[in-house]
């Protein structure tokens, strides 16, 4: 924002879309042009893609790739993990031998964003020697890989997936997922039957209507009715079954939902038509039955697709814990799968590696990056005796830890359990359509009863048919289409705009939201340290200072050092890392130190100069004679954050920031963004209870976050939204994901949600109006069946057309 280092807008990385650091020299020749890359990782990935002749990928993708730090970050650990996958014991659970002696593995691929990714993965893998078949599913992110064990090894193939910027995990389908798969297949079969049945019955119905106007031989009419009966039966009895089971469940729990009138309408119209066909008198409504079923099934299917889309990755913790660990057995280091670690084992964790389980440090001093758990990006120093948590990253020195907890007792699993509980306690959102349905069903049934009794008294022989036509005319076609069509259209629009909705209630709750709660690190800010300011003291200019400091920091893997990586030119000699203080090294024969003021000034033998007032992390660069300059490091605020907050305030929403960070930086960020309320230093449990307290005051809360530490809070909020860069666990549990990684989309979503609510109300009003007008006509026996059918279709079309207004992209007033 107010950075002195990069005043100009930064170029976006051609591969992953993140800003390219100033002075970056990473470039790849793609499509005859040099494209800027943000880091060596993206450069290597894009080079692999181009060298493989697969550069068409860049022309066809419609989204930027995801950056995968895990691969580019610590290749050594990844190589160790991959080599484990060649072990037959490890392969046992997800690899099987085919009849031809080939091996087949099921994998989950991380990082797939669009159809072009699928194409790239399939083609890159198919080119590898020994690969027989590779197919990737875009919806579930699952891959099926068949290879010849004599020509290649699984680890080599998984390494190839890494090389093009994705990450493959073994996939073990659990029962829940197998059920979802079944549910989806059943739904598609039901739609197929309903669609075919509908088309055929419609054709016959057209003949019947024509026959009503010009007269038709009664023999042929009877025959066509029988044919319609044959075609409509599977639709009414097989395709529409989900409505019946849902209605039965609702009746048992004494609720009236939309499923009840829907089932009633389908069953009554169908059985009356069957009766009419057998008796050879009265009217048939097979066309209405099939069309109604088909439209409703389509709506339900779209809802289900959206729900499944976020793709539940096999084991959500898989991505946080490493697959392998170095266990110390006597004097030997043995590589074992992390799942085989037991309490009391001693494990060596090298710098840059992830801790495989909770434990206590036995020997070695280091600092540990706990950002995955707490959101705090500054590593904490750890000494022997200190407890460390599985899933966090060792930053500086090798340490030996003794495992204290594994599996379900570990800290990570506790957070996941907390999430499950919060999810279960979440109150269900009452839907507008269901509320309307309750009154509507009651009214229809009462009216039908009244009509039946009065006609029974006046003209008993007509009573049944007139009552039935009342029920069919008031068939809640338009009413039950009113909400799903609007929601489907809005969901589709938001998806194009970069907001993926995975739970049905999101649009309704976004429209009524009163509070928006943000996490700080990774949500309002970019979530990593960047150099914000350089203050030379004395002779050197900023470029020279950057060159010197980057040379020193090249010796460290600390997040502070990573802020200097873009400016790296030469490496200093004799670099020594002083834990928690800074780095010392030699460049051009000059001895220099960078780090805390006290530490750096020691080299020159002076007391450190006072640090500038501005908040942030100040580092001092010193040589043996004098201090050279100050560097201010801070987490970069997202460019669109301030505007988003301003817009949200203008929409009448209260903004709150919840952060695990306890420092004054939190207040600083809030002040700069104009956030009204700040809660800092919050543990995951506190975040959850804060949200609960807020909801108890009647607030409707939208929570936006990205880390593991936000997950319980995300689950506790009425609506939860995860950032695109969030951990998989957060994404699969959030109600929506901002896949464009742009906070502005949130305001778009809220605005569209409000518009959707208005349109749902219009639709409901229209459907009710139609029913109110048609009811008296039907009750008095004036409505011919074809008139009822036309009226019903027309009202449905109006409702659908009105809902389609939501598919226009929302305009922004910037």
């Amino acid at each position: 924002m107010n950075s002195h280092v990069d005043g100009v807008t930064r170029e976006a990385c051609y591969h992953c879309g993140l800003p390219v650091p100033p002075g970056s020299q990473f470039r790849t020749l793609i499509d005859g042009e040099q494209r800027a890359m943000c880091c060596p990782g993206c450069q290597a990935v894009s080079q692999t893609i181009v060298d493989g002749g697969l550069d068409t990928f860049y022309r066809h993708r419609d989204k930027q790739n995801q950056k995968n730090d895990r691969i580019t970050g610590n290749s050594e650990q990844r190589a160790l993990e991959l080599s484990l996958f060649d072990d037959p014991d490890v392969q046992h659970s997800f690899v099987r031998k085919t009849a031809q002696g080939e091996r087949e593995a099921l994998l989950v691929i991380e990082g797939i964003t669009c159809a072009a990714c699928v194409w790239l993965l399939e083609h890159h893998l198919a080119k590898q020697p020994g690969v027989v078949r590779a197919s990737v599913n875009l919806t579930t992110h699952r891959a099926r890989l068949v290879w010849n064990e004599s020509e290649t090894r699984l680890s080599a193939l998984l390494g190839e997936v890494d090389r093009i910027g994705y990450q493959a995990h073994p996939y073990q389908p659990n029962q829940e997922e197998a059920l979802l798969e079944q549910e989806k297949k059943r739904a598609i079969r039901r739609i197929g039957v309903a669609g075919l049945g509908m088309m055929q019955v419609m054709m016959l119905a057209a003949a019947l209507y024509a026959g009503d106007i010009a007269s038709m031989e009664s023999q042929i009419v009877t025959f066509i009715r029988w044919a319609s009966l044959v075609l409509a039966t599977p639709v009414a009895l097989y395709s529409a079954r989900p409505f019946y089971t849902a209605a039965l469940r609702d009746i048992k729990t004494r609720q009236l939902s939309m499923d009840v009138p829907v089932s009633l309408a389908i069953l009554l119209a169908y059985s009356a038509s069957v009766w009419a066909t057998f008796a050879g008198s009265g009217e048939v409504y097979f066309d209405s039955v099939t069309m109604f079923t088909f439209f409703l099934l389509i709506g339900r299917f779209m809802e289900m697709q959206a729900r499944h889309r976020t793709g539940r990755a096999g084991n959500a913790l898989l991505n946080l814990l490493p697959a392998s660990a170095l266990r110390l057995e006597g004097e030997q280091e043995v590589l074992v799968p992390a799942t085989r670690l037991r309490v009391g084992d001693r494990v060596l964790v090298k710098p840059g590696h992830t801790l495989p389980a909770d434990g206590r440090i036995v020997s070695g001093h280091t600092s540990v990056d706990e950002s995955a758990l707490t959101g705090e990006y500054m590593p904490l120093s750890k000494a022997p005796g200190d407890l460390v948590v599985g899933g966090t990253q060792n930053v500086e020195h090798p340490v030996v830890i003794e495992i204290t907890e594994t599996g379900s007792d570990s800290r990570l699993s506790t957070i996941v359990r907390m999430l499950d509980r919060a999810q279960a306690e979440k109150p269900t959102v009452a839907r507008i359509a269901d509320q309307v349905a309750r009154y509507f069903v009651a009214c229809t049934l009462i009216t039908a009863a009244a009509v039946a009794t009065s006609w029974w008294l006046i003209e008993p022989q007509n009573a049944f048919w007139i009552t039935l036509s009342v029920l069919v005319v008031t068939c809640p076609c338009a009413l039950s289409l009113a909400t799903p069509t609007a929601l489907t259209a809005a969901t589709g629009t938001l998806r194009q705009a970069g907001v993926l909705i995975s739970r049905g209630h999101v649009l309704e709750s976004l429209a009524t939201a009163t509070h928006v709660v943000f996490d700080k690190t990774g949500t309002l800010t970019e979530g990593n340290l960047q150099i914000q300011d350089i203050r030379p003291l004395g002779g050197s200019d900023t470029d020279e200072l950057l060159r010197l400091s980057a040379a020193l920091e090249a010796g460290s893997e600390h997040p502070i050092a990573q802020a200097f990586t873009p400016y790296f030119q030469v490496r200093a000699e004799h670099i020594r890392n002083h834990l928690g203080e800074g780095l010392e090294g030699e460049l051009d024969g000059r001895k220099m130190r960078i780090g805390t003021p006290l530490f750096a000034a020691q080299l020159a033998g002076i007391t450190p100069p006072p640090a500038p007032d501005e908040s942030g992390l100040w580092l001092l660069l010193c040589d043996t004679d004098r201090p050279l300059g100050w560097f201010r490091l801070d987490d970069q605020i997202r460019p669109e954050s301030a505007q988003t907050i301003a817009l949200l305030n203008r929409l009448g929403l209260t903004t709150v920031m919840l952060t695990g960070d306890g420092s004054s930086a939190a207040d600083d960020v809030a002040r700069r963004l104009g956030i009204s309320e700040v809660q800092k230093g919050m543990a995951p449990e506190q975040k959850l209870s804060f949200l609960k307290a807020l909801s108890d005051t009647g607030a409707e809360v939208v929570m936006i976050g990205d880390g593991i530490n936000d997950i319980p809070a995300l689950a506790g909020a009425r609506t939860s939204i995860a950032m695109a860069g969030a951990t998989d666990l957060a994404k699969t549990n959030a109600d929506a994901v901002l896949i464009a990684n742009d906070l502005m989309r949130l305001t778009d979503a809220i605005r569209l949600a409000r518009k959707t609510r208005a349109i749902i109300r219009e639709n409901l009003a229209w459907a009710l109006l139609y029913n109110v007008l048609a009811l008296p006509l039907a009750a008095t026996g004036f409505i011919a069946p074809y008139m009822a059918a036309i009226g019903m279709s027309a009202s449905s079309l109006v409702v659908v057309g009105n809902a389609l207004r939501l598919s226009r992209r929302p305009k922004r007033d910037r």
Partner: protein
Amino acid sequence: MSIIYLLIPIAIILAGIAIAAFFWSVNSGQFDDLDSPAHSILYEDDEELIPEDVRPEKRVKGPDTDTKHD
């Protein structure tokens, strides 16, 4: 008009066959991925299937002969 006594049953049988075929294709996994097949037709990765003599010259494969601009 009596022909419809034959034609309508035939239509019903055909619809039955279509449903059977549809069930088979769903069960064999052809509907598992509803998104990517729609895109896959657009990728120009079928050069080796085009006969030599009609192959457009611009599209020579290989990383070093990238002459395409779009």
